[in-house]
């Protein structure tokens, strides 16, 4: 057990990586064995993540250094700076890793029946595992260059999965759009890394942070990083890829794409909070992120209202919900230099934003999975052609209702818990922003009432007379997420105190991050 805990950071990345390529060989033997193998691997990874999470919450940040003869010594003998590849797992990283592990497992379980009738599944599962590798890597990495590498792994695998259905042209078009954007974005991340390397002779995040001078070049790098990661998480001026990619990908992949965009969100926070922290002009950068958030919130929801493709509609809602996270974190960043304000409402806003990340992954994942279930039985995503599905698919209807009420912020569900935290704290910062957020929430509810009405209510349509409830594995996948939503909604305080608060503290507290790696230097 100690061995597992000690090596957990690398095992979480390396086991899915090994399994990804083993999957190709195993599926030559038997597809059934492959399915069992994939599920086993992802369950084991989830177990490792929980084990590591327990370790992080009890004994603080974990550091893992590759290739040396001890795992935890960041600076090898004779060197004063960390030169090796390093994985750092603090509260924020493990928080994102929990989300990633849960959603990957759910996605894989759901895929078992959803993708059954398609060919090329060996590659599908390989890419799915690679996608989780990319996300874990982005969350655990301790240096800028590996952030770029894992960002590219993530974008290559997710683009290939978006274009998985090649018998039509549209998925390839969406994937090409996404690929071009994320490729250019990743190259600019590399450019920013080069700027850091040129100035500070270091790639390690802690090392750069401790030497940060906030010169002109750093400002350029900050602009590049914020623009790229805001693009990758789908904030509004750069959101055009989101509806295309989300609506054309297979449903379980869409649920994972949501988490992938949140991994970019995490990278944005890591960059702003850990790399720069108080050296930057917090108020200005905070307001930039707040404005990005408000724009995403508002434009996302207004674009969602007229849609009649169910997944496209949900994709616009995903943009709108990303706005809430940016708003919460942006408020936290804007008051970062001001200890009083930070303690009275800034930290609360950040907790709200981070809590919204995990909630969003759960309910938006659930909604995309139910949209996939509707597509599975009806073969269409057009809301005008659906109707009366609740007669035949009661469980899917219930799951959809849970997700819809949660995204709209209705009390017993988790969306309410995080939204109320954001409303309260943002109100103290600037009342107008809080009111805007509430208006967006009401619009979201209106939009989902429309979807529920046109898809599930009404008389039974003759063409869907023979539809049945979706297969068991899809129900299990949706059930896990619904269970999490209700659990988080009923006990929000426990969740906030155990996993969200350490994440917020880890982001704000840059000093302890640097001290842990550089050893008090």
């Amino acid at each position, binding site marked *: 057990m100690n061995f597992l805990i000690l090596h957990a950071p690398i095992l979480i990345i390396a086991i899915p990586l090994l399994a990804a*390529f083993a999957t190709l*060989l195993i599926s030559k033997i038997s597809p059934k064995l492959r399915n069992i193998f994939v599920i086993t691997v992802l369950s084991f990874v989830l177990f490792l993540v929980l084990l590591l999470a327990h370790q992080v919450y009890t004994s603080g940040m974990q550091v893992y250094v*590759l290739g040396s*003869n*001890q*795992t935890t010594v960041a600076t090898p003998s004779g060197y004063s700076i960390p030169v090796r590849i390093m994985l750092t797992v603090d509260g924020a990283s493990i928080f994102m890793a929990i989300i990633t592990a849960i959603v990957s497992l759910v996605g894989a379980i759901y895929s078992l029946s959803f993708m059954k009738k398609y060919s090329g599944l060996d590659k599908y599962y390989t890419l799915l595992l690679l996608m989780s590798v990319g996300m874990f890597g982005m969350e655990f990495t301790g240096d800028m260059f590996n952030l770029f590498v894992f960002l590219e792994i993530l974008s290559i695998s997710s683009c290939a999965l978006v274009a998985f259905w090649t018998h039509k042209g549209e998925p390839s078009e969406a994937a090409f759009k996404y690929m071009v954007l994320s490729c250019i974005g990743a190259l600019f991340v590399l450019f920013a890394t080069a700027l850091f390397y040129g100035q500070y002779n270091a790639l390690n995040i802690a090392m750069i942070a401790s030497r940060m001078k906030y010169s002109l070049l750093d400002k350029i790098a900050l602009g590049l990083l914020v623009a790229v990661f805001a693009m990758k998480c789908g904030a509004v001026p750069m959101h055009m890829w989101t509806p295309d990619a989300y609506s054309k990908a297979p449903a379980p992949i869409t649920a994972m794409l949501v988490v992938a965009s949140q991994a970019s969100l995490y990278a944005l926070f890591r960059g702003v909070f850990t790399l720069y922290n108080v050296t930057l002009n917090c108020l200005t950068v905070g307001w930039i992120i707040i404005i990005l958030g408000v724009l995403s919130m508002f434009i996302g929801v207004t674009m969602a209202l007229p849609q009649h493709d169910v997944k496209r509609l949900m994709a616009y809602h995903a943009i709108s919900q990303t706005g809430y996270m940016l708003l919460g974190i942006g408020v936290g960043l804007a008051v970062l230099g001001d200890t009083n304000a930070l303690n009275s409402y800034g930290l609360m806003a950040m907790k709200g934003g981070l809590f919204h990340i995990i909630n969003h992954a759960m309910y938006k994942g659930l909604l995309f999975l139910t949209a996939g279930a509707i597509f599975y039985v009806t073969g269409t995503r057009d809301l005008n052609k659906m109707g009366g599905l609740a007669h035949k698919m009661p469980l899917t209807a219930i799951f959809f209702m849970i997700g819809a009420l949660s995204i709209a912020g209705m009390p017993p569900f988790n969306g309410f818990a995080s939204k109320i935290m954001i409303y309260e704290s943002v109100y103290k910062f600037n009342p107008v922003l809080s009111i805007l957020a509430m208006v967006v929430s009401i619009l979201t509810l209106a939009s989902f009432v429309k979807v529920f009405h046109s898809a599930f209510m009404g008389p039974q349509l003759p063409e869907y007379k023979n539809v049945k409830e979706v297969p068991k594995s899809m129900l299990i996948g949706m059930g896990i997420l619904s269970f999490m939503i209700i659990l988080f909604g009923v006990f929000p305080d426990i969740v906030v105190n155990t996993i969200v608060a350490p994440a917020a503290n880890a982001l704000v507290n840059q000093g302890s991050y640097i001290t842990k790696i550089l050893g008090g230097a």
Partner: protein
Amino acid sequence: MRGMSKIVRTITNILYSFIIIFGFYIIMHGHLTPGGGFQGGAVVASAFALLVVSYGALKIKDMLKAKNFSVSECSGLLAFIGLGFLGIGTVFFYNFLAGKGGLFGNVIYGINPGDLNTAGVLPLMNIAVGIEVLSGLTLIILYMFNANNPKEEK
């Protein structure tokens, strides 16, 4: 795509084996000279690309089978990550063979004749990467050639 003229095919016949050998030379000497697994793999794949271009995808189909390359690609990757896992007694990617003597030799500092058996686990990793890259790139070339001609695809 149909094959090219007889001149090109003859030159290919002469050259491609040498290109492959040169590629493997680069892979094997990755830890001593510039180059390594990726570069050598790319050179070997360029030999296969030459074959595909000069003979056409249809004729070469029996010689270069996509299925075999897919298997060898996976095994290369598995070998690479597996070597990383073997070092996990101390740390992932630990060079557990360095300085063990015998087949893997000792790590030599200073001027040396450039023996192959000097870097522990590194040559093995280079070979794994080389196998992966040569089969990966060849696979890309083969798939792209077939996709251009839906009629030849069978």
